[in-house]
């Protein structure tokens, strides 16, 4: 996230901002924390850590190692599960697989012993005995990717629309503003449910799309206002004079000058979307069954807390709180650095 390195347009603004940011101790600590999370995400993405999160390493609801193993003494299964391999005989009924199964059964080698399951895990286990720590790491990866990509999508939609509305004004502005008022007038819950129904798929991509397609409205208004402000500035008129096209003026000339607004909105929305993913999971539109996210963990842990299995709730909440706090503080620092007047 080195802002100075990517400074098109007016380097002095970005360099100044970076210098200011460096002086902000809270901001730098937050940046380091966010960086740490990013490293974890990259490691998880490359399969270096938590690749085997789905492995059932411990017993069901294995408690955290530091809490020690205490059997909660819940009810046991006494179901009668032993049965024969073939469908039993009943007059006139034939099992077409009977002979094949009998033959296969005879040739089946003795079962290898099952790997023993750990009684405790570093941060405890979930209902299948999966390691909560690994789930939290994997969940960090999913949630951060969801938050970041969805925020990028929302910002992209909002910036393009905001640019067109603000730059052209007139009919274009009316239409886009109309779209904005329609989207903000519909209750957010219904909008989410409706878009989820349209997409009719489940998985990480769907979560990203739902968040991105519903979350652009606030940014749109801000970007639009910035473009209205900038379109009559001298440097834009100068660009017009040297023959720059409208698109060039919008995205090559003006965009760098409003990008600090966009950047702050981007990081605000990352945080917002990470939190929204939890709600989407509650509504049943979370990530797929082969993925884990903070939202899916929190929703699982809802029933676990009352059974005294607090570790998954604690792990997911802590992982999320640290990142979101760091990210928010960093966003504040960034905003202060970019716009010192407001501090």
């Amino acid at each position, binding site marked *: 996230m080195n802002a100075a390195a990517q400074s098109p347009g007016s380097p002095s603004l970005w360099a100044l901002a970076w210098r200011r940011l460096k002086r902000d101790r809270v901001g730098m600590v937050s940046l380091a924390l966010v960086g740490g999370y990013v490293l974890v995400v990259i490691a998880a993405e490359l399969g270096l850590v938590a690749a085997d999160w789905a492995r059932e390493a411990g017993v*069901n609801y294995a408690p955290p190692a530091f809490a020690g193993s205490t059997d909660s003494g819940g009810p*046991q299964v006494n*179901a009668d599960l032993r*049965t024969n391999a073939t469908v039993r005989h009943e007059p006139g009924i034939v099992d077409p*697989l009977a002979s094949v199964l009998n033959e296969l059964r005879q040739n089946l080698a003795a079962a290898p012993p099952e790997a023993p399951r750990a009684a405790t895990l570093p941060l405890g286990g979930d209902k299948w005995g999966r390691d909560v720590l690994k789930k939290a790491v994997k969940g960090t990866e999913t949630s951060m990717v969801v938050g970041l990509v969805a925020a990028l999508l929302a910002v992209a939609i909002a910036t393009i629309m905001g640019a067109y509305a603000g730059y052209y004004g007139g009919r274009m502005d009316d239409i886009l503003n109309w779209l904005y008022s329609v989207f903000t007038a519909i209750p957010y819950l219904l909008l989410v449910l409706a878009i989820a129904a349209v997409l009719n798929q489940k998985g990480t991509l769907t979560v990203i799309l739902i968040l991105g397609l519903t979350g652009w409205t606030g940014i749109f208004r801000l970007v639009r206002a910035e473009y209205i402000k900038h379109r009559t500035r001298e440097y834009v008129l100068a660009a017009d004079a040297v023959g720059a096209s409208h698109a060039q003026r919008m995205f090559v000339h003006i965009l760098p000058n409003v990008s600090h607004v966009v950047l702050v909105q981007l990081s605000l929305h990352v945080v917002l979307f990470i939190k929204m993913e939890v709600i989407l999971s509650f509504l049943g539109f979370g990530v797929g069954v082969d993925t884990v996210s903070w939202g899916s963990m929190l929703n699982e842990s809802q029933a676990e807390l*009352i059974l005294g299995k607090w570790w998954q709730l604690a792990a997911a909440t802590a992982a999320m709180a640290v990142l979101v706090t760091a990210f928010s503080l960093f966003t504040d620092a960034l905003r202060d650095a970019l716009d010192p007047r407001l501090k």
Partner: protein
Amino acid sequence: MTLSRFLLAVLIALLLPGCDERAASPSAQAGAVQQKVLRFTFQAAETGFDPVRVSDYYSGVVIAAIFDPLLTYDYLARPAKIVPNTAVALPEISDGGKTYTLRIKPGIRFSDDAAFKGKPRELTAADYAYAIKRFLDPKNRAQYAFLFEGKIVGLDKLAADAKKSGRFDYDAPVVGLETPDRYTLRIRLNETDFNFSHVLAFPMVSAVAREAVEAYANDTNAHPVGTGPYVLKQYVRSSKMVLEKNPHFREMLWNAEVGDNPENHQIAARMKGKRLPLIERVEISVMDEAQSRWLAFQRRETDIEYQLEELAPKFMNADNTLKPEFTSQGIRMERSVDPEIIYLFFNTQEKIGDAPNPFGGFAPEKIALRRAIAMAYNVEDQIRVIRKGQSVRAHYPIPPGVAGHEPDYRIGIPHDVRLANALLDKFGYQRGADGYRLQPDGKYLILRYFSQPTERDRQFDELMKRSLDKIGLRVQIQKERFAELNKLADQCRLTLRHAAWIADYPDGDNFMQLLYGPNSGQTNSACYRSPEFDKRYEQSRRLPHGVERNQLYREMARQMEADTAWLLTDSRYRNVLVQPYVVGFKKHPVYAHEFLYMDIDRSDARALKDGRP
């Protein structure tokens, strides 16, 4: 964070004084005058209380308390036994199981209602004939219309006419529904059916007064008027229902069949011969979250808690008894198996729409694929982890407590992952480069498992994926909402899905029809069509409950296993928690308005202490 704690303390200080004003609540006030109030919860919202317009369990509980069917089930007899309710006696069945004649007790009154314009209104046989006709009135969209469709002589013609004209003619004579006098109802059936009494004991088939139905026209769901023990006193939809004793309820004495069960004797000792109902007021609240229901029961805000499956480890020991901290308070637990089956079904059609179904049809390799999935699916984990041990393995398509259940029958499909793998190898389902199996002809193989987007279903998704990964089958979880799943089921488009069926009435036919070929796309979601099965099913329809029919049922169950159309998984336990002062509760397998037969006794210090009746 000292600050937020401080703020919280401020807030609590601001709000707390009000919290102790419990005495102001109506139930507490009622308690002061010793009114007998029973409070319990529903897990999901009810729909309404017009017997023909609803079909959900929760609406049924209230309907059963307000309305009267002709017949009912004995409170204590197991398996459930039909006894007369408003009828004088059990029906006279004549004409080889085609004619049912019932006499109604004279002098039974409907509860007072504005629709009767201040006059007492007596129950007559015509009220039952009218109630049955309502099921086939297209306007009512009755979900239980199937109970009567094609059954009663002349009734379907009337329904067909109504569809054309748009108006159901309730006054037209129906040969199959005659009332030769004020108190006699004669029902003529198109075909022999010795089990029709179950339909007449169904709480939705209760007497309604035509005046009341017509007076409330489109809002009958909020204005139930019946002859039953309770009246609806207060109704906040999807939130709260208050029933109060019907002051005109006929004389009905507690007279259940005790048998030789010692528990029943204890109940009878406290209840026998008392005039019902003893509980004067019933308050039902809707609470969606299990956590809320559990906390409410613990704090004695509810008197009975019907379903806390996922929280079982909170209150149960390893041996499925109640933990001592609850027994010491006098709380009791009533444990029984629900009359239901949960099963995993396979679409057995060769094609779904135009697409070939990877495991459809009856070729050996297709049956082998279905069998392998059934052998790989970990039912034990479903019971142990998802159900928290609160269900019992289902072996037979007819659950315990239902006529035709075979307690000694054992399912012929074992859980054996290695054998499943060997079976797939044998039939040529080779593994591809990514470790997942291909079809015998080398084509891509993917199975689609359908479920709802809920946290609960997610656990099943996880289990399905874990199980199928172990035999190298690729599964795609397809999420649909409930209505959409129903639609797909009706079109025979669901490939693989868990389903549950709870008894409408406690007879095996209600379960075996789920596999009958012609019911494909209605209740037979597997769209299973086996000539061997269907032949035996048709024979069974003409037989009363007994040895002969049971033999046919056993053969049908084996046939279904041989074809592997279903994998039966489990039937859930119901662990009902009862506060110490509640007397005479015993879970009934079919109906859920046990409070009619119960009492509340707060005076008995002994009951409060050790919880024995």
